[in-house]
């Protein structure tokens, strides 16, 4: 009951949704999410590149050993 | 089939004989259990509340069980193991192992329970309730034995010793403990045996499940 009273004195609607703050929070969250997406994408690309390099190095050492 | 059974029986009797031969083994476990019960008695006397009685009983039982499986299995010594690996199938070995642990934990928990009734009193039990509670204890120690036999083998294989058994085993046995504690508190609150017996069924199902899982998985654990 205390909580209800508190809420009714201080309704979040006017503070959060009325003033457009929700848009800011949502926008920041979306930007963070897209940042995470880009970070993952870049990480994957770099890992794949390194993996290819490692494969090449593997081939080289093998051919060196053969010759 | 008959040969398999005789293998299991041999391994089981062998484990039992080894355990009984070094007298400090089983005696140490029992002293540990009784000493724990006596410590509880020192704190609460004979007038422990229902909840405390229940909680203390399960905690002491749990730790006695862990203590019992913490000792290295004698047959796990490399020279014996390499012989056994050729002589018997790992599944039979696991069955013998589980059977031995069921007996061992059964003895330990029975002694613990008797000590509990002796020291902390049986004020919370009326008539057959004490027997029903004992049934729960036996089922719980069976479930613990089936699971811990496997976990103990696993941590021995990983070379981790007792602490690894505890780390791997404690979370896994939580479902067992949840069921058996609620069974115990149901009995103590005076709920009829028939209305709470589904907990026992659940424990039996868990034991059967753990045994089946162990039976399937133990060969992978054991082969070189």
């Amino acid at each position: 009951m205390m909580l209800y009273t508190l809420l009714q004195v201080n309704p979040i609607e006017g503070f959060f949704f009325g003033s457009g703050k929700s848009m800011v929070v949502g926008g920041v969250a979306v930007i963070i999410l897209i940042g995470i997406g880009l970070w993952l994408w870049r990480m994957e690309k770099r890992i794949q590149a390194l993996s290819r390099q490692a494969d090449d190095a593997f081939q080289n050492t093998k051919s060196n050993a053969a010759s | 089939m008959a040969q398999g059974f005789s293998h299991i029986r041999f391994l089981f009797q062998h484990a039992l004989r080894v355990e009984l031969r070094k007298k400090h083994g089983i005696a140490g476990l029992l002293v540990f259990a009784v000493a724990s019960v006596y410590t509880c008695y020192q704190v609460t006397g004979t007038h422990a509340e229902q909840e405390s009685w229940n909680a203390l009983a399960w905690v002491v039982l749990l730790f006695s069980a862990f203590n019992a499986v913490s000792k290295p299995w004698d047959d796990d010594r490399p020279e014996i193991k390499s012989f056994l690996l050729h002589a018997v199938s790992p599944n039979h070995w696991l069955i013998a192992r589980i059977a031995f642990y069921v007996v061992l934990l059964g003895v330990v928990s029975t002694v613990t329970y008797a000590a509990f009734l002796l020291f902390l009193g049986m004020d919370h039990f009326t008539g057959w309730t004490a027997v029903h509670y004992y049934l729960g204890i036996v089922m719980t120690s069976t479930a613990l034995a089936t699971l811990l036999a496997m976990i103990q083998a696993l941590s021995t294989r990983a070379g981790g010793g007792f602490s690894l058994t505890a780390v791997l085993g404690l979370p896994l046995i939580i479902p067992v403990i949840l069921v058996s504690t609620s069974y115990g508190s149901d009995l103590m609150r005076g709920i009829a045996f028939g209305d709470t017996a589904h907990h026992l069924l659940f424990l039996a199902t868990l034991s059967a499940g753990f045994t089946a899982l162990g039976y399937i998985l133990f060969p992978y654990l054991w082969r070189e």
Partner: protein
Amino acid sequence: MIQGSWKIGGIALLAYVVWTTFTVPLGPGLLELRDRNEAASTDGITKRIETYELIGLGTHWGAGTEDLRVFIRKGQNLAQLPVIDVIDDTHAHIALLLPDTLPSRSWDVLANHPVDGTLFLQNGLFTDAYIIEPTAGLEPPVFDEHAPNLPHHFPFQPRIFETIRNLMLHVPMWFTMFLLMGIGFVASIRQLGQKEASNTVFDQRAEASVQVGMAFGVLGLLTGSLWARYTWGAWWVDDPQLNGALVTVLVYAGYLILRASVEDQRLRARLSAVYNLFAFIILMILLMVLPRFTESLHPGKGGNPGFNSYDLDSSLRAVFYPAVLGWMLLGTWMYRIRLQATQLNQKLQRLNQR
């Protein structure tokens, strides 16, 4: 780019989910019907007129003050309460003008308004100091339930209020963890089932999926804890579902510890696969089976550990299903990156050994 389109799709879905989660407003609801004159005398001689204050959250009573109608209902019995005064959008004064003999003590409160639609407050009114006669009938007023006339909004739930948004974070976390642990389970079975014992490729899959799944499990615990603080008043409560969730995370932590304590790669692959099978089955028991046996505060309880009792309405579903799909796609992507990193690590180690 085309092969990676599902990754972009997952991020786009999540962007939509996060945006709507934070920007869609909450629908209106009733908070409380409060007695205004608690100290007033209750003499039975004069006709009793007590005034109550009806408190709403996010309601729009100020727009059309004459259109607010308040009813109380118990089963088939329905009575209208006169509105004395509408103070503002969320506060109105109600007179408790009722016959002396009533069929029940506790009543549900309903409020009709053209903008908000029909709002409902379960057991909102308790009428003491009335004669209770179960057979007493009441004159049924004109009452028609109608839908709100509002832009897109999330449904109002008592006690949950704005935290309904957490549904889009908390529940998909667990679904994603289930998916990843399932991937790990299958990988462990295949690790044990393959003939070539030195091949640890499935073990790497199991490891990567458990690592990422653990991250989602911990996030599920954290978001759940936040929600518990708001709705139940404590960061952690003793509840079968919560215990199960914590124990699951502990079991998988044990899996990672087991991996760390074995040096030999082949042995580690086999032992951890065995333990992983145990862990997944315990996960199923703890989160799917046990909660059905026991009572729980967690939503969807009394038999079903799902989310049915949330009364997912169309506005929630339009965000919740994309949220589940989006988080699962992100989880799968993270798992694949983690797997590639592990494989790269192994390649480099082999290269160094040459």
